[in-house]
């Protein structure tokens, strides 16, 4: 895990090493002095304290030397950091969207993936976007991290230099499933990358409704396969009888198009029994009337499939 796998890793690690070495020197040195004083000038051994006068020279010394040292640390940190913001012109551009609570990576040819596949040894620039709250793209093995701030453009770049699969984590707290907001980056050879890039058809689901569900990250809380996540599953939703709580009163409703629409626009009004209110945001002004129709159509089509 300490293994670095990008062009920045070596610089960052050596900056750590530099600062740690000096820090440990001071920590250990001062601690030893302190303990030595405690033993040597212990009251039993040294019943009478000697009064020492202040010493201007000493004060100046232990102001100036640390000052010089921290300036070196500052400079080291800055020098290694500077290139992190200077993207080479030939970098391949990937658009990254981090939303509550998943990642998607969009390539120049329109291909969208939920895994960041990159060729080894080639510079890549990630343009960072968030449609909802702040997230932060963090790849520990590459020693890089940058926030994705809604309404602001931000970016990061790097050259992955060892083939392998590495974790992508979200480092800025973004709500309920923050700690589950993971993805992988797979670093492969140029040929492999080209094959992946060209061959695989972009995973744009044929069904428009499903695409809307996925693009709005509905499916990160509502499963399609019947498993229980943060919210109830979408499987077998359409036309089913739902036991819901409205203002603390239990009632049964049929999941028809109006019910589904209400559940999207005012999720807290009726809560399916066994789930907590306040978990889902209201999607009014986010998902349009037409999109809701498409979603309902998708649910309906699913209910017609043979089991």
């Amino acid at each position, binding site marked *: 895990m300490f293994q670095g796998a990008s062009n920045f890793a070596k610089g960052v690690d050596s900056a750590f090493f530099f600062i740690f070495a000096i820090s440990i020197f001071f920590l250990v040195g001062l601690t030893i002095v*302190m303990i030595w004083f405690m033993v040597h000038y212990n*009251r039993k051994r040294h019943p009478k304290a000697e009064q020492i006068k202040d010493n201007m020279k000493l004060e100046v010394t232990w102001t100036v030397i640390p000052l010089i040292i921290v300036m070196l*640390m500052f400079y080291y*940190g*800055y020098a290694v950091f500077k290139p992190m913001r200077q993207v080479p012109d030939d970098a391949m551009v990937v658009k990254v969207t981090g939303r509550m609570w998943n990642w998607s990576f969009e390539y120049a040819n329109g291909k969208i993936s939920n895994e960041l596949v990159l060729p080894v040894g080639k510079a890549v620039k990630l343009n960072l976007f968030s449609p909802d709250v702040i997230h932060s793209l963090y790849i520990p*093995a590459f020693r890089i991290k940058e926030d994705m701030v809604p309404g602001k453009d931000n970016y990061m770049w790097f050259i992955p230099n060892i083939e392998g699969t590495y974790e992508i984590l979200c480092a800025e707290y973004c709500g309920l499933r923050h700690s589950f907001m993971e993805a992988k980056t797979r670093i492969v050879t140029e040929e492999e990358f080209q094959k992946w890039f060209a061959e695989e058809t972009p995973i744009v689901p044929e069904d428009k409704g499903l695409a809307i569900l996925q693009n709005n990250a509905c499916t990160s809380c509502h499963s399609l396969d019947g498993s229980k996540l943060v919210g109830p599953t979408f499987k077998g939703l359409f036309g089913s009888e739902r036991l819901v709580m409205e203002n603390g009163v239990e009632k049964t409703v049929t999941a028809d198009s109006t019910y589904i629409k209400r559940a999207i626009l005012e999720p807290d009004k009726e809560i399916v029994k066994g789930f907590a209110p306040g978990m889902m945001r209201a999607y009014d002004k986010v998902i349009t009337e037409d999109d809701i129709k498409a979603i309902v159509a998708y649910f309906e089509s699913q209910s017609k499939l043979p089991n």
Partner: protein
Amino acid sequence: MTSNNSALHPGSYLDQQGKYKGILGWLTSTDHKRIGILYLMCILVFFLVGVTLGGVMKLELLRPGEQYIDAQTYNGFFTVHGIIMIFMVVIPGLAAVFGNFFLPIMIGAKDVAFPRLNLFSWYIYIVGAAIAVLSQFGGKGAPDTGWTFYAPYSIDSNTNVTTAVLAAFVLGFSSILTGLNFIVTIHRMRAKGMTWFKMPLFPWSLYATAWIQVLATPIVGITLLMVIAERTFRIGFFDPSLGGDPILYQHLFWIYSHPAVYIMILPAMGVITEIIPTFCQRKVFGYQAIVLSSLAIAGVGYLVWGHHMFTSGMSDFSRMAFSFLTFIVAIPSAIKVFNWIATMYKGSIKINTTFLYSISFIFQFMIGGLTGLTLGALATNVHVHDTYYVVAHFHYIVFGGMGFAFFAAIHYWFPKMFGRMYNEKLGKIGWAIVFSGFTLLYFPMFILGLQGMPRRYFDYLPEYSGGHFISSIGAFVLITGIIIMVYNLFRSAKKGELAPANPWDGRTLEWTIPSPPPLENFDNEVVVTEHPYDYK
């Protein structure tokens, strides 16, 4: 003036005074000492609640996956844990408890400048705390934003964020008024002959702190009001979907909250600066250097807030400038450490519980400070920002620093405050367990952070389970130690040996009056001629 049966000393502040008896007598008293004790009790309760929440979080993190609480509960827990510890424990902390109790005595005054305002500040604190408690219940559930209330999540979350933000807002007023009171007290009420540079160093640190409280707290106040307005009336300050700017929020928040770190640590440094000379029987080394470094920290501390935002997309120039200033502010802290250690040189050192807590303060403060350097340097910050490295770093500063200074202070001044000695043996056992538990709990978090474990994670990848496991064990050890310490103090307050006026051979003014002090502290007007740390 000294009397051996001082607990029976008539007219002690603990005896009934004024027209009300018992608890009502406490709730209406404007005596600075009683107000100090009121804060002490409240802070103790909140601290123990905060510790319990921390303990439950560590229990959940003992193993990966969901154990005892679900993700939403966990998120609520670290949010209240942070709110309690920051706004209700460490920010009032030393200033409200020991500042109230000892500032007037140490400068030879009968009380603070505005005793009634002082009691009023305590009531504001209680109202703020009550609102914070309220935010945990009813409505749409406990707030889940973290104590930092970052927008736009804090605008979108439909939990009781407004209530929690209101609590922080109200608590801020208590802090401002206490600061104001102390500034006026120090300017106007010093004893005859106590020039600025004859003032002891704990009051000096309170003075520097008070200015930060008065000048920085209003900024967070207005920011929190903006959050409330945005949530209630949909006015777009911070949420981009309403036309606001999330980075603006972060600037405003940290302009206060970084200096707030110094609100907690400066008085802690002040306490340690009192204790070391007393237990070494030596004049403090570099009195003026220590004063100037306090003022420098208070000043430069205002200019470094951006180091919390190195990865936020802030301009590259700001990143560099804030990194530079952050390294500058490290220097005055280093100067203090050197002076403390130099004070021990050729002293006559008495090692007891108080001193052990002080020494562990210095040790842990060094670790907290030195790891701060990797957070201040840009290249390394990018890797460890928002990981467990930060969680370890700030617990080392706030808990290992401020918290341990608080433990040192309560032992140091215990005989004065309650007129009895604490049990030394149990005290030392408690210290040993607290210290080892602390190290076991927080040190592994540095490693976890370096390995890339982000903070505020309910669940984690299997490669982080070793570190979390050890750290959770540490939490249980630490909590055991805290229980022993608190037990010892409570028992000693009732059954301890009676304390003489000056059990440690201190030189500052509080040791010249009986333990516990009489109602108005001094029988006669105090005249100061000597330097506060003139040991013969």
